[in-house]
């Protein structure tokens, strides 16, 4: 059988890719069944990210928690409700993880953890050409493992007094929920069908204290409404021809 040059290149590339996947898989063999994240406000503009994952550790008993927020630090971790002290920052290729030694091997465990995320609520500002500048949260979870994640959810609890102003991702209004917990507004997004390897779940919304909660602006709004209404009624009742 005679293979042309292009076919040979494609076959060689496929052969090479098979090996690269095998090496990657050997590094992170844990399989995540479900993964949920919940950001809650902490001191200043920081947040604490509470994670909960149902996962089968790799053959060495390791579980890998992805690092999705810059400069975040794993503060504490529990496996099946018991605190674990053996964890470290690690990298598989260029992908950063928190590596946790569970003590279990290739049997499902429930891992919970608390991750400190500095300046999570101090992100970039939207600067619209018309309208009010607001803070924006743009968060994306990327499945960097080689296995599909069974289900994924993220909840973001906003600091007291703040509320979601406009949501840009996910696009469909049926895909997210806005709620309230303990007096704080929340944003919740769930991907029930799971996330494939290299797939992602993104949320993006602006938030802040709306102008309608600010006394000075409220006063100005009602003064304007009263003034304009008074003038219109006076003019139109006062003999102005109404056509």
């Amino acid at each position, binding site marked *: 059988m005679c293979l042309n040059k292009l076919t040979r290149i494609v076959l060689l590339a496929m052969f090479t890719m098979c090996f690269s996947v095998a090496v990657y898989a050997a590094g992170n063999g844990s399989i995540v069944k479900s993964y949920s994240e919940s950001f809650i406000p902490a001191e200043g503009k920081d947040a604490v990210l509470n994670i909960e994952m149902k996962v089968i550790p790799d053959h060495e008993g390791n579980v890998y928690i992805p690092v999705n927020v810059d400069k975040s630090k794993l503060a504490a971790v529990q496996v099946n409700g018991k605190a674990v002290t053996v964890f470290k920052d690690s990298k598989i290729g260029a992908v950063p993880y928190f590596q946790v030694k569970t003590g279990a091997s290739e049997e499902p465990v429930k891992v919970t953890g608390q991750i400190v995320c500095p300046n999570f609520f101090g992100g970039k500002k939207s600067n*619209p050409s018309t309208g009010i500048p607001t803070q924006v949260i743009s968060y994306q979870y990327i499945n960097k493992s080689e296995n599909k994640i069974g289900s994924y959810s993220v909840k973001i609890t906003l600091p007291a007094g703040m509320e979601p102003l*406009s949501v840009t991702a996910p696009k469909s*209004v049926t895909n997210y929920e806005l709620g309230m917990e303990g007096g704080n507004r929340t944003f919740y997004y769930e991907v029930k069908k799971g996330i494939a390897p290299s797939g992602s779940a993104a949320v993006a919304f602006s938030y802040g204290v*709306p102008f309608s909660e600010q006394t000075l602006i409220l006063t100005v709004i009602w003064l304007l409404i009263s003034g304009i*209404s008074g003038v219109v*009624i006076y003019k*139109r009742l006062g003999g102005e021809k*109404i056509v």
Partner: protein
Amino acid sequence: MSTVLNSTKPAEKEGLEKWMKILGIPVALILFGGLITMSTPVGMSFQGKAAIATFAMALVLWVTQAIPTYASALLVIVVLTLSGGWNEAAVLGVFGYDVIWLMIAAFVITSGMEKSGFARRLALFIVSKFGSTAKKALISLAVVNFLLAVVVPSTTARAALLLPITLMICQVYNAVPGRSNFGRQLMLQEVHFNNISTSAILTATAPQIMAVGYIKDLAGADVSWMTWFSAGMPIAVLTMAASYFIGNLLYRSEVQRPVIQNDSGSTKSLAEEYKDLGPMTAIEKKALCIFAFTVFLWCTDGYHTQMFGFQVSLVMVAVLSALLFYLPYVGLLNWKETKIPWELMIFSAGAYAGGLALDQSGAAAFLLNKIFGSFDLASIGTFPLFMVVMFVASFSHMVFTSKVVRTVILIPAVVGIAMQAGVNPIALALPAALTICDSITLPPHCKPNLIFYSTGYFSVSNQLVYGLLVLLAKWGIMGVAYFTWFRVIGLV
């Protein structure tokens, strides 16, 4: 088409209309202020609240006519962007939406048809054959809408297609925009007939096909074309009849027969007028060819790829047709002869932006879910449940601009309620799906509404009152059908 742009000296308002003008601005502002300054309901974003406040304010201004509609549309654009109801790029982008281009192209086509004289010939032919009286003209247009719904699978294309013909029929009847009850009734019935006839034919608009998909996926029930037709056709026919009778009550036509005058001022018959047109001129033949080509492309929408290897959207068909009217040798029109009511284009863009903001911000979905969630619907009994669901399904169009978004939210919710109540899901979901095209109460609710509103023959309040009454009649017809026709066909 000159009738659209006729300017007549407005008379001073009296009674209710006068008070609406006096109180319109204060009521609109207070409503806006009250909504925007209230605490944002849990489950809704601030954007949603701002969109509702802006739309409510605009609705009061449109209905009361306290400021000109084009000014209220500009106000919507400014307030939406300043209050956070929608971002500037999105709001301004509405002027580039397909519906605006479709309207511009439709008016170019209408201008070309009018200039050539072909539109008048066609209108005289239709009126002399089928619409020799005002009532016959209205009934024949209902029949035309039904027939077109079978062959043209788009409500918007059908509206654009009938626009030049309806305008010329108005001209034959000497109907002056804003004053003539005949013109008002004809254009509003076009809105109703266009939408309601669609509800009888499953394939007449895409969201209905989508609803059938949901019913199959969520309830496991197959709804065939014939099942839909047998359930929807009697409801549509009776609703159109109700629309006709309500229209006659509300806006009794001031003319019974077209009055045609010759140059010396004496009247003559339609047949004489039609005969006086003589044989078709070359310019009329050009207009006929372009119009026939346009209709052909709209009718064959689903087969373009097989025929040409590429698809032409309905709006691009209209733009192509407008282009042909302007081209040398082929066309017959220049820009100065084109009559586009720009103030109504501005209104359409602003009103559509206000409606779209409700969809995009999630406000419409929030309101619908709130209504369904507020009652313990599962425990109220089957018939009351049916009536409540039909009412909400039909009138929910008032907060949705997009039929697709409404279908996505409405049908799964109705299937869920039916399952919770232990009712056969299809018994609620299919009748609810028959209300998807009930978008007849306000101009921004769907594209055909905007197209016919742009003729200037009716006001927002005319459409609102007439539309609400017709939908109430349809609701009643559905209630009667629950005990009669729906049982005969085994739906309930």
